[in-house]
């Protein structure tokens, strides 16, 4: 119980640190990025939107930093993130429009990579020294050090050669009407195929390696020898005895990686112009749309915090050894 409370306290502090970073960074940097932004957007957006920004950053009103900080915390707590200058709509609307695309593309691919990678890792460790075990680790050591965006570029190049009309950018075709119709769904799936494949190639190696290595360690345990001595069938030893125990660290890693789905979206969505969270974050950064930058950064951090909390809980539930008394 005390442990849980301490963890919660830590998350509260981290959240506060993230909020404060969000508040301090634009005010701390040399050359006053806020004034740059104001100058850039004067005449391009409605006076009301500009005024909202002025109020938020305390420019014309000359409110003290402390009051600004207090107002900022209050606004964030009530879900009032301001208005996005690039999209000319409330930040919360931009985010709700973008977040599902990211979760759909990268969330699903993360789950796939975990399941496939873990299975391959189990097989690799089980047939230790076999062809799978011989080929995979070196291949994936190299694969994990390849920059993701480069794999994406090569895929675009390859597909462009083989099948020039295959979609390589966007989440769906221009002019398609979103809805639950069959043509629209296939269109979305087609658009998701290349970015999904690129993520899969670069992320599966980590799962394979960690699963294989824990599995190798677990296979040396006495209870595995015991199971062999009892004459249990090989697949039962592999899945019920070894893999089940070796999975633990991987499972909590998986829970954490789900939290990093949003933060991992940036490069994928940039490369494939996929309109999710990462795409909007980059757009906002490039166009100095700071209200959107702040809200997206907060969202990404909160996602990670929740995932780590879930991973903690999961480990505590699944592995009695990690539970401390009291």
């Amino acid at each position: 119980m005390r442990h849980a409370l301490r963890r919660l306290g830590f998350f509260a502090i981290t959240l506060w640190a993230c909020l404060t970073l969000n508040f301090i960074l634009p005010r701390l940097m040399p050359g006053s990025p806020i004034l740059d932004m104001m100058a850039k957007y004067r005449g391009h957006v409605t006076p009301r939107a500009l005024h909202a920004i002025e109020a938020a950053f305390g420019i014309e009103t000359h409110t003290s930093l402390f009051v600004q900080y207090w107002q900022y915390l209050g606004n964030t707590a009530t879900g009032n993130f301001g208005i996005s200058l690039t999209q000319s709509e409330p930040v919360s609307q931009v985010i709700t429009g973008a977040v599902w695309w990211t979760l759909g593309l990268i969330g699903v691919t993360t789950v796939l990579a975990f399941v496939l990678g873990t299975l391959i890792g189990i097989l690799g460790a089980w047939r230790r020294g076999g062809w799978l075990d011989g080929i995979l680790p070196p291949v994936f050591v190299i694969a994990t050090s390849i920059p993701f965006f480069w794999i994406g570029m090569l895929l675009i190049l390859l597909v462009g050669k083989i099948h020039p009309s295959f979609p390589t950018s966007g989440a769906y075709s221009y002019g398609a009407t979103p809805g639950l119709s069959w043509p629209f769904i296939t269109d979305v799936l087609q658009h998701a195929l290349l970015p999904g494949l690129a993520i899969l190639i670069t992320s599966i190696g980590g799962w394979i390696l960690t699963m294989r290595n824990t599995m190798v360690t677990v296979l040396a345990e006495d209870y595995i020898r015991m199971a062999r001595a009892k004459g249990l069938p090989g697949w039962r030893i592999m899945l019920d005895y070894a893999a089940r125990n070796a999975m633990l660290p991987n499972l909590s890693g998986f829970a954490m990686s789900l939290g990093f789905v949003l933060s991992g979206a940036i490069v994928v969505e940039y490369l494939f112009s996929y309109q999710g969270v990462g795409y909007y974050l980059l757009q906002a950064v490039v166009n100095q749309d700071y209200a959107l930058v702040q809200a997206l950064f907060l969202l990404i951090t909160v996602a990670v915090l929740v995932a780590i909390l879930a991973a903690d809980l999961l480990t505590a539930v699944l592995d009695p050894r990690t539970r401390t008394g009291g």
Partner: protein
Amino acid sequence: MVALQITAEPAAGPGPTSSERAAGRVWRAVRSNKKALAGAVILLVFAIMAVIPGLIARDNPQAFSYGRSLGPSAQHWFGTTASGQDIYSQVIWGARETLIIALVSGLLSTVLSMIMGIGAAYLGGWWDHGLNLVTDILLVIPTFPLLIVIIAYYPHSSLIPLIGVLVITGYSYGARQLRAEALSLRGRDFLEAARVRGERRTYIIFAEIIPSMTSLIVAVFLGTAVYNVIAAATLQFIGFGDPNSLSWGTMLYWAENGEALQTGQYLWAIAPGLCIALLGAAFALLNYAFDEVGNPALQRVKVRRDRYAAPWRIRANRAS
């Protein structure tokens, strides 16, 4: 994730010899392992490219003096870019900045990890709580978005802010590992002995604790170097680097903007990416080899173990 670490058992008397032994250990690890050797060779080749690029590629990499989008030929081995620069010499010259970013940010990150990690463990008490809290927060806040947000507010594109941001956002994982290792050393006899001998704190930290953690420190360095190579290249690719600089990430940025893939200048996009991948792989191979040498469970089944058996103490540390 399971990180495996090796600590030398201080069998003989501790002191200056332990650092010599540590250096010898690193050298043995490189020589005796094929993966490590491959990594070291790749690194050496890139180092040569970075030191004497002018001797390998005679063309000025930044002169716009050739035909645009030429295919590979005897004059231009890899062809030319959309604005008429020689791609081959850009690749050769690009090694320098890429390697500088990797090594400098990797080294500085490692030093910061050591200060925050070993410092926290050694000083203990409130220092430990304070330093550890900062590290933990930075560990949890997603690094790449943080990088981008900081660069967004600080758009002066030069190397120093880029390296600075990489160091601040990238040290935390190593600091955690080093702290755990230093904590496990804290009660050891050889440190007690040094304290009883009346050695100064700085002596204990630099001559006793750090040498006995060499393998882990090297692993932390290699890990951050891989990460920084890729992170820096990605930032440059997205357009947050100096667009006039000569590095593989910047080349890819121009290749994408110059539509290298559409105009058929494949080598413009392939060569720098391959170099980044190889450099990352070199660090990763070295790192992997260290793990393998340290943990007999991961070694090939037929390897002779007696060579490492006696003087090693092996400990599996689960860093979650």
